[in-house]
């Protein structure tokens, strides 16, 4: 390793935004045939560093060296041309374009007026999708895909560029463990072929599994620089990231059997294809809803909220049968809330300020006479939650789009914690949130439940599910396949859950064979 020459080097990189010094002289050295972890808390500067390396931002100071010679990237395209590929943290797909068009965006047609050969385009996209075991028609418009699938398409797009350096900014944030494994197989293969990879993740198990080198950022500076992962344990990583040991509150037994039911579904079918769904969440209870990507969990949540139609069966709120005509009625008349998994397009209004976003669900409650709304009152109502989740922003007037991904996620969650609803659906709440905040978030959700809120947690992150839920309901292909009472013992519960998923798949004869990967 030591004789090998660095393929890429960033030296003394600084980057200033108005009111924020995002990077204060950061170094990172990338070796060929290596997977390099880039770690740090939310807002530490990981994404900013990646954007500087890939030509999105011009650094305020510092140098970039490619194969030992100094370079500058005038644009992202320029970086791609020089062999640097990237999967950004935020989705950058064109929703109306097909999967294949998105994958080949950089090389759509040979000449300006030459017509695009669509069948060749679709054929060209297929191997990259198959490599990720992504069973979708390349001609599908991206807007029809779920968040996780969009993420996989984005990865496929980056793979198709076959670059020498590939930077992945939280690629696994919304993937389940089986999809993550599939991705890792490919990453290892790329590494063995000599590619230099950078991997950002807040899931330290993943980092330890796949990375051989590590750089940690803290507040825009190196807490450790491009060192080998040998001999570094989880504890050391956490220590470097947050400057102290991890204080994750573990699962605890909570008994809510005596409590009344807040939300009940009996034999519910929806216009999206759910059939015979039965579900009951009691006051103060945290129920997990687990399933693989595409199982129909988010869709069920949206049907409960009145966004999609319930076509058969009974929905009960506090024991009374109700028909919920629209989302506003669910929130304001029935006290239901939904934290979306898709913060960018459904959770937040990116061009508005932190304060404007955090208050939306309680505006109606806070409005005074003539509908007058005072910033002060909104401020007082939401601030405690923003503080508990340690939102990092120069001010509450900052535009949300300018915050780091994890901090955006915190706002998307905080606005619902402040909303004071009696039933809250939490869809992938910790996507992109660092481990420290994740522990706070879990504690907040438990406190909320202890105070009487009924909570339905949807998460692809099995450890999170097992840390939070009292009871875990498993969904597969728009059906509920069973239920597991949580004992907090990871191995037992995960085994039981995977059993429920696989039984269902064998019943329907839809076991997906693991295809040979050809990258």
């Amino acid at each position, binding site marked *: 390793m030591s004789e090998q020459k660095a393929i890429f080097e960033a030296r003394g990189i600084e980057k*200033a*935004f*108005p*009111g*924020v010094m995002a990077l204060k002289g950061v170094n990172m050295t990338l070796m060929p045939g290596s997977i390099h972890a880039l770690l740090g808390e939310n807002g530490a500067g990981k994404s900013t560093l990646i954007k500087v390396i890939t030509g999105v931002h*011009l650094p305020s100071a510092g140098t970039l060296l490619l194969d030992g010679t100094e370079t500058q990237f005038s644009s992202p395209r320029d970086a791609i041309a020089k062999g640097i590929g990237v999967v950004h943290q935020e989705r950058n797909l064109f929703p109306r374009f097909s999967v294949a068009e998105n994958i080949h965006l950089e090389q759509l047609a040979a000449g300006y007026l030459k017509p695009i050969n669509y069948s060749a385009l679709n054929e060209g996209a297929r191997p990259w999708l198959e490599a990720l075991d992504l069973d979708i028609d390349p001609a599908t418009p991206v807007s029809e895909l779920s968040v996780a699938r969009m993420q996989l398409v984005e990865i496929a797009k980056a793979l198709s560029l076959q670059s020498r350096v590939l930077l992945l900014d939280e690629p696994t944030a919304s993937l389940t463990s089986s999809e993550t494994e599939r991705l890792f197989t490919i990453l290892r293969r790329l590494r063995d072929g000599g590619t230099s990879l950078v991997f950002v993740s807040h899931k330290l198990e993943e980092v330890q599994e796949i990375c051989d080198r590590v750089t940690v950022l803290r507040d825009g500076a190196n807490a450790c620089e491009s060192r080998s992962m040998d001999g570094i344990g989880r504890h050391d990583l956490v220590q470097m990231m947050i400057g102290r040991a991890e204080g994750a509150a573990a699962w605890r037994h909570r008994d809510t059997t005596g409590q009344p039911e807040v939300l009940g579904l009996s034999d519910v079918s929806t216009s999206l294809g759910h059939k015979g769904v039965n579900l009951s969440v009691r006051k103060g209870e945290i129920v997990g809803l687990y399933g693989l990507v595409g199982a129909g969990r988010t869709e069920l949540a949206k049907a409960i*909220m009145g*966004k999609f139609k319930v076509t058969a069966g009974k929905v009960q709120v506090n024991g009374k049968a109700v028909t919920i005509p*629209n*989302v*506003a009625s*669910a*929130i*304001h008349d029935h006290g239901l809330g*939904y934290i*979306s998994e898709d913060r960018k*397009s*459904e*959770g*937040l*209004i*990116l*061009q*508005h300020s*932190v*304060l*404007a976003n955090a208050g*939306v*669900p309680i*505006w*109606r409650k806070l*409005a005074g006479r*003539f*509908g*007058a*709304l*005072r*910033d*002060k009152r*909104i*401020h007082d109502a939401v*601030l405690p939650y*923003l*503080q508990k989740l*340690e*939102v*990092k*922003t*120069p*001010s*509450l*007037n900052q535009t949300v789009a300018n915050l780091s991904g994890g901090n955006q996620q915190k706002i998307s969650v905080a*606005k619902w914690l402040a909303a004071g609803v009696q039933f809250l659906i939490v869809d992938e709440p910790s996507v992109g949130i660092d481990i420290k905040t994740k522990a706070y978030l879990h504690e907040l959700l438990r406190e909320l439940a202890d105070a009487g809120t009924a909570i339905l947690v949807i998460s692809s992150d099995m450890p999170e599910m097992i840390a939070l839920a009292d009871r875990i309901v498993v969904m597969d292909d728009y059906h509920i396949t069973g239920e597991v009472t949580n004992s907090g013992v990871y191995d037992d519960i995960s085994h039981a859950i995977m059993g429920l998923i696989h039984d269902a798949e064998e019943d329907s004869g839809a076991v997906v064979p693991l295809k040979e990967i050809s990258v």
Partner: protein
Amino acid sequence: MTIQDINSPPGATGGLSRTRFFLSNEFGLILLIIVFAVIFGLSARGFLSPFNLFTLGRNSAINIMIGLSMMTVIVTGGLNLAVGAMGVSAAMVCGWLIEGLGVPWPLAILGGLAFGAALGFINGWMVVRTGLHSFIITLATMSIFFGAMIFLTRAEAFRDLPAAFSAFGKMKFANYLSPLLLVTLAVAVALAWLYRATLTGREMLAAGASPAAAELSGIRVDRMVILCHMLSGGLAGLAALMLVARNGAAIPSMAGQLGQDWLLPAFLGPVLGGTLLQGGKVSVLGTVLGAFLVTMLSSGLLMLQVGAFWVQTFLGLMLLVAVLLDKARRSYLARRNLA
């Protein structure tokens, strides 16, 4: 840079927001207004005379109102091509109520405004129902409203309006200030308050900025879109009634064929003022300043004996230059990371 900072009360301004103001559209417009006022004041004789200031104020009152009417729909990310047709229709209804039905004029004015809002309801309802862009819907209703109005009025004006109307149009405070301008400024202040400090205004902005996120946060996006169109119709009616006060009569052709004469001022105000065409961000002050600048330019150019057609050409050019300059300003700020 962490939580301590977010404890500062909202609206707390530092040096940063002051620099932002100097880089803002509004500041640019104020500069332009001063520069052109000096140029015209020096070169066009009579530009600063009380009489010219009076007509300038009166005309800008109407143009600003037209701009505000468009702005309320731009908030939703849409357009309202029918502003002129709706405004004139509302004014004709008011005239008919007075002359045809003998309704007292204050009630007739309310009737006219309500009619404008009703036309806006039709636009908004169709936009929500069909899911088509308001460009298409209002292009169609522009012809429909205007055609129906011409048919029903037989293209004849209402000229026997109560003296109060034209008296209001001719009234002067301190020899040069038109009360019409005060009406407009009052409406502008009310709109600024609406968007800044009321539930409805905030919901309108949220619905315009991101309909999906707004819906999942409990906002009735469809209602807000309809409400924005109704507001636009009401304001268009108000602009037309002010025109009636100026002319002393409600004339079907007062906004040109299909009401198209209003389109240029309608877009110039909001666009110069920095209201985002994608929706979700609004600048009432900018719209006021933008529309005022435009009115002042046309008045000044006319006084310099530039032909009326050239003035139109000039205004069109100005719209283009404004948009391009704004784009340049934005990308400059983005590159320097100042905004």
